[in-house]
């Protein structure tokens, strides 16, 4: 009587498990750590030896003297969770959240209802979006300028310096890196005190 091919199935599972589950990721890890250690370990940004975050992961900013990230998802910019709101287009709670976010932009930033950039009042897909749109940053300049006593023109220049253009001129969208911008603000302020 013939039996099912258990032996080849089990040995091949074992062999492929070692090859694809151990050797392949192991090789990628070793080469990645050798060639690109900064990226492989999370593109960490340190100030005076202390890790202040990752260049890729957004942070939550609430103070007036910082540019703010996009509205936080349930995870609240905690790096151990990720995901969006998953609220659908006909969801009343989502519409209410958007409406109150628009109202807050009008009140805090002096924006105009109907002209609020779409990324400013919506939650991202990862909940960790490190970027905001240039229009979003431009709207925040007045508030940060008041809180820091830096002229709006100086701030606009700083924002422009931390605006990333389309990659290779084509891919993605223009965007402002919030954490790098705020780090630059802090170090500019520190220079002034000195």
């Amino acid at each position, binding site marked *: 009587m013939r039996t099912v*091919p258990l032996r*080849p*199935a089990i*040995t*091949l*599972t074992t*062999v*492929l*498990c070692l090859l*694809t*589950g*151990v050797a*392949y990721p192991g090789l*990628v*890890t070793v080469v*990645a750590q050798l060639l*690109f250690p900064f990226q*492989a*370990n*999370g*593109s960490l940004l340190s100030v005076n030896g202390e*890790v*202040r*975050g*990752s260049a*890729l*992961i957004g*942070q939550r*900013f609430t103070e007036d003297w910082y540019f703010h990230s*996009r509205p936080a998802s349930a995870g609240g910019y*905690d790096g*151990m969770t*990720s*995901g*969006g709101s*998953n*609220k*659908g*287009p006909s969801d009343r709670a989502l519409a209410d959240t*958007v409406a109150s976010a*628009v109202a807050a932009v009008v009140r805090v930033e002096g924006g105009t*209802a*109907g002209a*609020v*950039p*779409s*990324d400013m*009042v*919506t*939650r*991202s*897909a*990862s909940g960790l*979006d490190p*970027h905001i*749109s240039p229009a979003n940053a431009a709207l925040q300049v007045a508030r940060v300028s008041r809180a820091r006593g830096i002229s709006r023109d100086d701030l606009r220049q700083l924002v422009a310096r931390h605006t990333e253009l389309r990659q290779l001129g*084509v*891919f*993605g*969208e223009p965007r402002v890196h919030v954490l790098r911008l705020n780090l630059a603000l802090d170090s500019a302020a520190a220079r002034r005190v000195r």
Partner: protein
Amino acid sequence: MTTNGWVQFGLLGMTVALLTRPTGAWLVGVYSGSFGALGFAERAIYRVMRIDPNQDQPWTRYAEAMLTFSVVSMLMTYLVLRLQGMLPLNPQHLGAVAPSQAFETAASFTTNTNWQSYAGESTMSYFSQLTQFTFHNVASAATGMAVAAALVRGVSRKGSAGIGNFWVDLVRGTLYVLLPLSLVLALVFVQQGTIQTLQTPVVATTLEGVTQTLAMGPVASQEAIKLVGTNGGGFFNANSAHPFENPTPLTNFLQIVAILLIPAGFTRMYGRLVSSPRHGWVLWSVMGLLLTAGGAASYYAEAHGNPVHAARGVDVVGTATNPGGNMEGKEVRFGIPSSTLYATVTTAASSGAVNSMHDSFTPLGGLVTMLNIQLGEVIFGGVGAGLYSMVMMVILTVFIAGLMVGRTPEYLGKKIRAREVQVASLYALIFPAAILVPTAASAVLPQGLAGLANAGPHGLSEILYAFTSTAGNNGSAFAGLSGGSTWYNTLFGLVMLTGRFAMMVPVLALAGFLGEQGRVPDSSGTFPVTTVLFGVLLISVIAILGALTFFPALALGPVAEHYLVNAGRLF
């Protein structure tokens, strides 16, 4: 909609078109046996397995080997997940995965679906992610490619009892295609910022003095094969929206290309091995047309945004500085065009990786993603799976064309007789049944309704999407649905296994039936399969079959929601 957005669409089309020919040539070399650079490794593996690589298997033995391998590897994963707490490489000390969750996850990865009803960063240890998920990402992809290769042999061979050797196809697909491609892609991803480390999560102090813990892990190696093998299972909950998985717009573009590369190459390989390259390009063009139509519709819908949100003060008109449109559940670095392009490709090609949250798409944008899967994963489709699903549609088309002219249909020199049509019909029936029956049950039973995150028609869309995605072995989700309950985990597991193996076995049977036949010469009654007319007919069959089956369900879900949202109605 911006010019730049359309340029990105065009660049993708050109890139895939240029890569189809070389990828096809490469696949021909792999599955016809002429590549042999890693012969020493191959022979060593066959020796350990104690198999004869030259043995040609009839379709029944081929199917038996495929099923045995899948069952064994699925059982292994179930056991590893249940024992996770006792296994190494677990710096977060994550415990055992619950039984129904472990079953669902094992089924999910074995079937190339990668539906994930858990959050990776807080559920699965590095050990589970590496040895189980990365392994299945390779093995399930190689299995799909093997079945497609077997079907190609069935069509191209004359009077042959065998359709190849499953073990050899599996090993060669892994060694010559999946691993080398993944290795290169993983390193490119790391260069761009994808992480690859075994260290514990990093603790940072934010500028406002709050503690932020950053999840770490061997991400890049899994990311590469997740795309190359059209698997789609993310290391993190947010999948390819997570900046550690998909850090830049360039990685995003490469991810989309990687999803389409092998499925596109298979059409070329098919054309060459059945000695009708033009037929391969006809299939490619049909797939390309359907993809373009879906992509354009999705881009249009998302760029116009949500009227409900526009009425509340959001500027949905995109400019050079404002992304506009519907940005809920989308990343700024990708914006609307790169998000809709990704969503269209990932659902068309059975990947299921996402860089934006489909649950938050506008009703029509969401409709496109769902319909892409419901058309049968034939728009490039999964690696291997896309080709064999498309060939099933071709058989039906040839049959219908034969009925029209009243002759026995022929396809590439093979007679399409009753049993070939029976197999293709079976294939076309199992898929919608696997979607619609459990959707209907979940829409009325309390266990099904308990998981909904949205009320109204969107709630139905969430359930419909879930079973569409699991039956189509896609794996993307309207992720608001809490799929982690015993009800959903069990149903999803069963639906995924049905959507995979109840469809692969008919494919192998068809391969066997066709391979046994001799070759009938073309005659004046042969319907040519290399013409524009045939392409139009094929698109019609695909569209009519999909529309007739799913239109009632779609009308109650996304279509109803579209009209309600435009009337300002909320739930």
